[in-house]
């Protein structure tokens, strides 16, 4: 559906994205994951034809986003990061306007407005001025305008940013519903969110794609057993070497937090050392006060991917 190859974009002398290549299959839900400033928004803007790439090419349904921009734009529904709304229009007038701009015939627009208002659960706010809606409802109006013309591809830039947790959950399930029938490309800096919604995840960092993975694999990294935090009651001078001696341990960090000694143990990748550690502690006559799997934070995953080193 979408094929991007070697896409690079410069803002002045600064590269926003460099040599980004990916493809999106029809019906797939693809997520772009990356920290702020990684180049997600730039990528979305290029996909939708808002920005032309400095070099490289993107085709959507066989149409080049620069050469055949109008054809591409006809097939894309787009929700930019800052939801662009005309605050002095009512919800239904706004949707009607956006439908007309997308070239829909009037009769079609009327029936579709009913549909999208239903899908986005905006029923009570049809005649409300957009300026009076809360952030979460504005987000829904934003999604409603993106899907009104039944686009083949839906591009959502940070669709859950800045709205409250309940609305985040609702928005996610809405996107999941849409993803069943449409090709969806979305960006986010929240890993669990991407894992939940997307079938495939591209991790983008400093303008480059550093990894491509399924959410399952990413989630494994998040809850991995190879990093444990253990709190032990006992003299740290003895505990530290004892822990280091356990087979499979790569490194042990020690932290003394007002008499509470915690140790961060890094095991060899994939090894579950919980039993060995607890046995070692108990057999030395110390007390095991707590043990916790730490996994990797998003930042650490990024760090690992971008430095190409094991932690």
């Amino acid at each position: 559906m979408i094929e991007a190859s070697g896409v690079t974009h410069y803002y002045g002398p600064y590269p926003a994205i460099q040599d980004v290549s990916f493809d999106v299959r029809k019906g797939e839900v693809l997520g772009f994951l990356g920290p702020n400033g990684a180049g997600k928004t730039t990528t979305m803007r290029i996909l939708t034809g808002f920005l032309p790439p400095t070099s490289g090419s993107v085709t959507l349904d066989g149409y080049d986003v620069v050469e055949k921009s109008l054809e591409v734009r006809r097939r894309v529904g787009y929700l930019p990061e800052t939801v662009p709304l005309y605050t002095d229009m009512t919800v239904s007038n706004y949707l009607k306007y956006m439908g007309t701009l997308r070239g829909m015939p009037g009769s079609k627009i009327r029936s579709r407005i009913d549909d999208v208002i239903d899908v986005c659960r905006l029923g009570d706010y049809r005649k409300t001025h957009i300026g009076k809606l809360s952030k979460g409802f504005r987000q829904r109006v934003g999604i409603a305008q993106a899907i009104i013309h039944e686009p083949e591809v839906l591009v959502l830039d940070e669709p859950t940013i800045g709205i409250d947790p309940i609305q985040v959950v609702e928005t996610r399930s809405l996107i999941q519903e849409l993803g069943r029938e449409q090709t969806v490309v979305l960006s986010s800096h929240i890993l669990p969110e991407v894992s939940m919604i997307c079938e495939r995840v591209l991790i983008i960092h400093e303008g480059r794609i550093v990894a491509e993975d399924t959410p399952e694999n990413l989630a494994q990294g998040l809850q991995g057993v190879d990093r444990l935090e253990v709190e032990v009651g006992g003299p740290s001078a003895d505990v530290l070497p004892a822990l280091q001696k356990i087979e499979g341990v790569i490194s042990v960090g020690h932290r003394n937090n007002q008499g509470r000694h915690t140790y961060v143990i890094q095991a060899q990748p994939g090894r579950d050392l919980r039993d060995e550690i607890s046995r070692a502690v108990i057999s030395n006559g110390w007390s095991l006060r707590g043990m916790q799997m730490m996994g990797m934070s998003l930042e650490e995953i990024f760090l690992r991917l971008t430095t190409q080193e094991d932690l």
Partner: protein
Amino acid sequence: MRTVRAVAWKEIQIFFLSPTAYIVGLIFLFLTGVLFVWNLGDPFPEASLRTFFLGPPGFITTGTILVMSLLAPVLTMRMIAEEQKLGTIELLLTSPVRDWEIIIGKYLASLVFFLFLLAMTGFYVILLFVYASPDAGPIYAGYLGLALYGAAALAVGLLTSTLTNNQIVAAVVAVGILLALFYADQAFEAVGGVAGEIFAEIGMTTHFYDFARGVIDTKHIVYYISVIAFFLFLSVRALESRRWR
């Protein structure tokens, strides 16, 4: 064409719902009303719109065209600048709409509202015809001239609105350009020679006099239409360039 109409219709609705447009309308009607009445204050008033078109005697060319030069940019300053500020430009430019359709739609909307305001001054004309028997020629021609002048001023305003996301900057720059075009013929006297004549021809005021005298000359109509086309063309280009900036 449908998209042009949709863009224009939305903007027209905003005009008729926004306080700014009504304030501009109020000031416009007040100032043009003063200009109209000025003539009647004369001991032997003549039944014409002379002061309305050309300004009070001794303050030649400070008539309605000067009022329009100052107010037209206020009508257009919002049009693209606000879209850029709100980010809605991103929606417009990612919809299957050509850049010129956006510009023409917005321009037509401002033109409709401006012509509506101008039509309101028809009240003065009615008064004249009721209480006297004015020479109709200069009135019709003068109105055609005003419409063309205003249409050109709106095109200038639309360009500056495309160039910035700050409405105030858009309005001030447009007023600057319009005043420069307004006084360009004064430079004629200062400079003289061929350069002076070029200034006089470029100036928007020079081309208005004949209309006010009741003469409809094709060359002046062509001049104003060229100005409109030129500034609209630049606006489309400026909007396009947004993608490359």
